[in-house]
């Protein structure tokens, strides 16, 4: 078991796999984006109450979900790094921060734009909105902390601690709409009794979600390769690859 993890967690192996599959994932994500946007912006019907405005959902919701998903990935790999000292896990966490922050920013911006016409305000210090803003700050803090500590090993561990501490924010984001009867609407899709959204509107949403996911994985794989090269720059497998021109 441990041997197995070791093989599949070893940088040279991961580097090779990543190099082989990341272009395909990138292409797939592009296709899904085009398809999802077409379905969402053109094919899907307008909403009975909101009319056309609601179409911002096709960016807002995937971005919001990804913002949380990426953070969870970051926190879990940070925990793995702290507990088992697996350096690859740290590379995953490091590579996720920036894109996670971008998703969060996107969710905040699209939410704000959507909130103005529907709620009557760009911003309210409501539980969902505030906790999502906190998430953005956590991402920024993570990156800033990494950058600020000069000793790379210490930087990695300190940032990992921060990522783990901050993970309490994720359930707060998700359940805030139930706990605090907030301005933000309760869950439409992620609910026990099934989605409260018409199927013709729902399908494009899932396509967009797929596109966002694949885009994240593509980005992650590419950044991880750079991270692994940097970290293992003194290792033999890197010099072999450099000499062989197989970066």
């Amino acid at each position: 078991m441990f041997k197995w993890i070791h093989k599949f967690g070893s940088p040279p192996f991961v580097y090779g796999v990543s190099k082989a599959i990341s272009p395909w994932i990138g292409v797939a994500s592009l296709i899904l984006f085009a398809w999802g946007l077409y379905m969402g912006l053109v094919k899907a019907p307008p909403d009975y109450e909101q009319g056309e405005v609601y179409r911002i959902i096709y960016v807002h919701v995937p971005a919001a979900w990804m913002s949380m998903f990426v953070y969870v990935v970051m926190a879990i790999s940070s925990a793995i790094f702290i507990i088992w000292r697996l350096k690859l896990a740290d590379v995953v966490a490091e590579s996720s921060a920036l894109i996670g922050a971008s998703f969060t920013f996107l969710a905040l911006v699209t939410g704000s734009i959507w909130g103005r016409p529907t709620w009557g305000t760009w911003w309210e210090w409501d539980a969902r909105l505030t906790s999502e803003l906190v998430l953005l700050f956590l991402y920024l803090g993570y990156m800033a902390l990494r950058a600020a500590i000069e000793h790379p090993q210490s930087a990695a561990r300190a940032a990992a601690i921060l990522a783990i501490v901050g993970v309490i924010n994720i359930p707060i984001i998700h359940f805030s709409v139930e706990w605090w009867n907030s301005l933000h609407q309760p869950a439409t899709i992620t609910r026990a009794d099934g989605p409260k959204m018409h199927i013709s509107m729902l399908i494009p949403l899932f396509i967009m979600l797929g596109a966002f996911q694949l885009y994240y994985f593509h980005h992650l794989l590419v950044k991880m390769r750079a991270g692994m090269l940097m970290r293992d720059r003194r290792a033999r497998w890197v010099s072999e690859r450099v000499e062989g021109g197989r970066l």
Partner: protein
Amino acid sequence: MTPKRKQRLILVSLMLFGCAAAVGLIITAFKQNLEHFHSPADVVAGAVSPGTRFRLGGMVVDGSVVRATDSVNVQFDLTDNRDVVTVQFDDILPDLFREGQGIVAKGQLNNDGDFVASEVLAKHDENYMPPEVAAALEKAGQMPSTAATFGSKTLVDP
């Protein structure tokens, strides 16, 4: 058990106790009214004195909306199915402001007992569907309640 182990055990159990206490307190908190707003019934009962800024939550009474012809000024009634408070507002209302819809208004009572709002927020519910589907559901009498939960927690069952 070595003393070190024992120490660790004590520390861990203290930690667990702390977490449990936190969970207990959170549950108590949610039993309390964490709403940021008063209901019309509170206002009529005199819970808030004029001049105090506060939020008022409730449902817009059907047919009560009166718009001024020469300005954006608008007046409507807000209810929790028990009492009614008149609200005045002179700014642009959000798209989702409808009669029968829950809203929250920020402002203060004037001396006549009317609520002068400086901001009105409307909330959208979790349902998304095309207009045709909505019409069909309406016909079948299966339309989910449109009163978004924003004000509904203060609503008294009629």
